């Protein structure tokens, strides 16, 4: 198992390198630079700044320097926030983003799987139809619309929950952002889960389990759940990606101090180091999550383990 994990990590490295390279050059294609403001800077100062950040060297050399630094674990300085390195900025925002993302991830899986099982067991009943309607809502309403609606209802009209901010970091402040962030994923996971659960419940080995006299709880929990989870698992990797990009918007709307905010500002200000650093960080997170998903696969299906 460990060697498997190690091999997977090795194969992820070239992917990471390609992504960094593409990102590096695409960013430079965008017009403007970190020091272009509304008022043009005196050329002397700009030249000094460019020299300080290596921007005066040929692009390919800048690329080599950057890759060299990354290999040393140095994501470089932030171009627009003085005295802060990219790593420092990320580590400031990180806890908030991680808490938000992890909570949304767990909530998505739990509620999605649960709703999917209910839908499959009570096929075509009113509860199945209600769930299907909610799912549709989750899929069609974008998060930047969902967020203000929920803020309006629960934050202002009912006054149950804070409208935004991190506050004292208590659960109350997390409920709305997590809800907005996880809603579309709950919707997708529950649909996936419902479909595969129905399929699994019709399979021959479930018929065997029924013929053994087992009641429906052990049949679902012991025999059907694990195979039905397989497609959900393969969705979790991409879902983690969506959650991270979704968190950019949600952090902005709810005024949370996560990395998302820095990322958006950095992109607008052409803070090359910050954008690249955040991208690398996100990719590593997603690669790790995908690795975890693969390992979970092996747990779900003994055939994968054997290979």
């Amino acid at each position: 198992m460990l060697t498997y994990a190690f091999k997977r990590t090795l194969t992820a490295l070239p992917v990471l390198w390609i992504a960094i390279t593409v990102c590096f050059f695409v960013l430079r294609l965008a017009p403007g630079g970190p020091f272009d403001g509304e008022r043009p800077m005196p050329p002397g100062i700009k030249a000094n700044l460019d020299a300080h950040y290596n921007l005066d060297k040929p692009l390919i050399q800048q690329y080599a320097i950057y890759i060299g630094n990354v290999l040393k674990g140095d994501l470089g300085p932030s171009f627009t926030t003085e005295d802060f390195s990219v790593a420092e900025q990320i580590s400031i925002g990180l806890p908030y983003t991680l808490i938000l993302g992890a909570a949304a991830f767990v909530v998505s899986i739990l509620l999605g799987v649960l709703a999917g099982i209910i839908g499959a067991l009570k096929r075509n009943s009113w509860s199945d139809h209600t769930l299907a309607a909610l799912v549709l809502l989750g899929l069609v309403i974008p998060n930047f619309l969902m967020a203000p609606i929920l803020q309006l209802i629960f934050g202002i009209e009912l006054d149950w929950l804070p409208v935004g901010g991190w506050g004292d970091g208590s659960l109350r402040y997390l409920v709305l952002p997590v809800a907005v962030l996880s809603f579309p994923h709950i919707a997708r996971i529950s649909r996936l889960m419902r479909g595969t659960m129905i399929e699994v419940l019709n399979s021959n080995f479930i018929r065997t389990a029924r013929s053994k006299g087992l009641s429906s709880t052990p049949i679902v929990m012991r025999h059907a759940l694990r195979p039905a989870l397989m497609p959900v698992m393969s969705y979790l990797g991409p879902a983690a990606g969506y959650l991270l990009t979704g968190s950019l918007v949600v952090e902005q709307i709810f005024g949370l101090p996560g990395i998302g905010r820095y990322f958006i500002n950095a992109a607008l200000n052409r803070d090359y180091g910050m954008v690249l650093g955040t991208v690398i960080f996100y990719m590593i997170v997603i690669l790790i999550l995908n690795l975890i998903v693969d390992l979970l696969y092996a747990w779900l299906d003994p055939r994968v383990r054997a290979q």
Partner: protein
Amino acid sequence: MTKLLSVKDLHVDFATEDGTVNAVRGINCHINPGECLGVVGESGSGKSQTFLAAMNLLSKNGKARGEINFKGQNLLDLPLKELNKIRGSSISMIFQDPLTSLTPHMRVVDQMREVLKFHQKLSGTEADKKCLEWLERVHIPEAKRRLRQYPFELSGGMRQRVMIAMAMLCNPDLLIADEPTTALDVTIQAEILDIMDELRREQGTAIVMITHDMGVVARMCDRIQVMRHGEYVEEGAVDDIFSNPQTEYTRMLLDAMPRIDAPRDSETKPVKEPAKDHFLNVDNLKVEFNIFNGLFARKSVLKAVDGVSFDLAKGETLGIVGESGSGKSTLARAILRLLSTSEGEVSWLGSDLIGMNADQMKKARQDLQIVFQDPMASLNPSMTIGSSIMEPLRIFAPELSREERRAKVEAIMDRVGLPKSMINRYPHELSGGQNQRVGIARAVIMNPKLVICDEAVSALDVSIQAQIIDLLRELQKDMGLSLIFISHDLSVVRNISDRILVMYLGNVVELATSDALFDNPQHPYTKQLISAVPIPDPEVERTRKRLKLKGELSSPLDSAARLRFMPSKSEVLNNAQKSDYRPRLIDHGDNHFVAEHDPIETLLVNE
């Protein structure tokens, strides 16, 4: 004698989008304690549904009416909680497809344990002991290790044994077996049937044997109930039904069943020297697949076809038999270049087929056609059968006009016995037999010289099977076709073939004329295969002795497995030599070739 289970006026209806389907219409039957009842009928006869209804295992849209009495209770009226106390305990069931009938992610022992836990409140070492005991009783080798394994680590026959062991854990009064051996090879089938027979004698368990195979019935059952289209046809003691069937349908079922002990019913063509015919000559053909385990693991080579040579004469029918994994289908596909070969030569009408370029090959394909096993799955579901049949015309005869093509398609449909009105139908609207006629029409529309039938009748009911074989024979006679007829079913192959090639793990073990092979088999494996096929005649079956050879069909990945019939050689060779050594084919005269082997006496299982 009190009846163990009695079914009274049972109806099973399925609500479908096209209205209600009455799958079972007023069936009455019963089973006595300790007896074996054969329930026979073709697909759609409702034989499985009757007993799935008794176990409340119908699919969701199914509804059963009537009465099924077991120990004074009507199973159809029982609340699920009460029924669950009976299912798996006093009545248990095994199913057709052992590959999918076990939960894939649970160890064998965990699946068996839950039966004991639920019905007998047994757990821990006591339960484990019982599981082990039952695995040993169904003759699973290395039973202790098997307990810890997952279903995918076991072969099909092994899985079916696990199913049986699991079904027997609580000593049921009744075991319902729904086509338990249909998906298995004949030698495995013989073993499974032996085990079931043994259990019945030792435990007194009554068995309901649901099957389409009259041979299995003759081998196992005391009494038969024949069903057709959900209705009762006739019922009686096995000897009475076989010797004196009362209805036309039963007689037809018995007659349609090809018998391995019957000589072929068409005239035997004299065997010329096919090698000199320069029709199809296959020489030392090898097909190897590289198997990669994991991303960085080293590859292993699976030798699916490992040096096969044979010649086929014009107009001749060559049967190829072998169990699953023997490489017979791979061989067929390799000859047609549907798979790439790794070594060897195929010469077609005197020219080298393997070396042909794309243009030459396209031209050759017109004469080389294949009919596949699963008629439905091998036709494009989004094309009408008319356009499927027409497709070869579009490729090989683009000069024809629309009308000419249509006329040709209609003519060939007529020839294979399909009504012209079906030309715009889709495969899912046709029955299996009709779809196979489409497959045949598609294959013969360009007047090919060779048609390979790869298990072409295996998925069909016996009566349909007989019709398709007759059709192939007629076409052969009219068009002068050569046929390569691949099947795992020896009785069918005997019936249609002039010569037969027996394969074992990618090698030829015997090649002889049909009659010589069955009347005078030489290789131990051939002998074992023939003895394993049940004969649809209860009297013959009772006195027949089955040959049991040491070892079992092993994986083609295991290079030493080829020497299974030559243990004497295997002892003197080292590992490298073992994987290189191929038993040679020895000419016994009269076109009878047999692979080297040790005397059969040394290979038999001592009992």
